[in-house]
């Protein structure tokens, strides 16, 4: 199956692209997706997506299908065609 990953805010700057499509085995989970991103070192995102212990950073926001927040610790199962969007926190100024 294929999952589209959108990059936003500082994550987009680090990725240098708006989005990528990631191929995953059927029944893959969110954490499988993140491991795939990490293993492939997609667009040198690892330093912003993962902490020093290689765990998914807790200071990121994830949404699915542009409608709902998801948490990495919930590790939801993904479906073909899902869209995961990754935001780093932003502020005022």
């Amino acid at each position: 199956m294929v999952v589209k990953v959108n990059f936003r805010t500082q994550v987009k700057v680090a990725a240098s692209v708006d989005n990528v499509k990631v191929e995953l085995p059927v029944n893959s989970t969110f954490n499988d997706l993140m491991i795939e991103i990490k293993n492939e070192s997609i667009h040198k995102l690892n330093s912003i997506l993962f902490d020093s212990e290689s765990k998914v950073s807790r200071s990121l926001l994830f949404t699915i299908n542009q409608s709902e927040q998801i948490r990495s610790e919930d590790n939801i199962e993904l479906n073909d065609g899902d869209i995961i969007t990754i935001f780093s926190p932003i502020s005022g100024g």
Partner: protein
Amino acid sequence: MILTDKEREVYSWQIDVPDFGEEGQIKLKESSVLISRCGGLGGIVAYELAAAGIGNLVLAHNGNIQNSDLNRQLLMTDQSLGTSRVESAKKRLLDLNPRLNIEIINENITPLNATSIVSKVDLIVDAAPLFEERYSMNLQSVLQNKPMIDCAMYELEAQITTFIPGETPCLSCLYPENPPHWKRRFPVFGAVSGVVGCLGAMEAIKVLAGFGEVLAGKLLLMDYRNNTFDIVAIHKNPTCPVCGKQ
């Protein structure tokens, strides 16, 4: 509290909004709002709330006006370079609406001053650039049971949500840890801060006057580079160290 004839005339266009009316206007007049800080984003919130007839504003922002403020901080002027930001903001707001009560605090929000400053107001508008400030206001929002409107921007993107203690997630639910990559200075256009500032002011007006539907439990995500607007449902974190037991 009643409105004066002058106030009825000044606010007549919004008093005509059916579910707002004179009752809503009186609620605004009775309300107090903290805005931290009053720069590109918070300054627009302050300006719109001043125009709408909020009764009391508390503005917290340290420092003096710099050239690099002027692309977005519309309460600051070139003539006021080098002078206090909050003094400039107060002057501009009173020029617009001399009926306002404005308290200016020439400090940024910290864990040391947040308790007393938040205690003065009914609602918080978080427009601060540093997450230490934002977390300090979030903690007091939860502890003092006061709504907080959280506005943010980056480049051509913007986000806004309204945190209602006990009902919605809080800032620490969304971002449990201080983001290590975030920096005080970041790329942004003043028009982006202007848009999200107006949205923040409208959220504040709706919360205070008790009408319409606010962004409670919803995060509005905007990207002006390609004109996309999404509203996503956000959820409380049951293990949140700030609001998890509520």
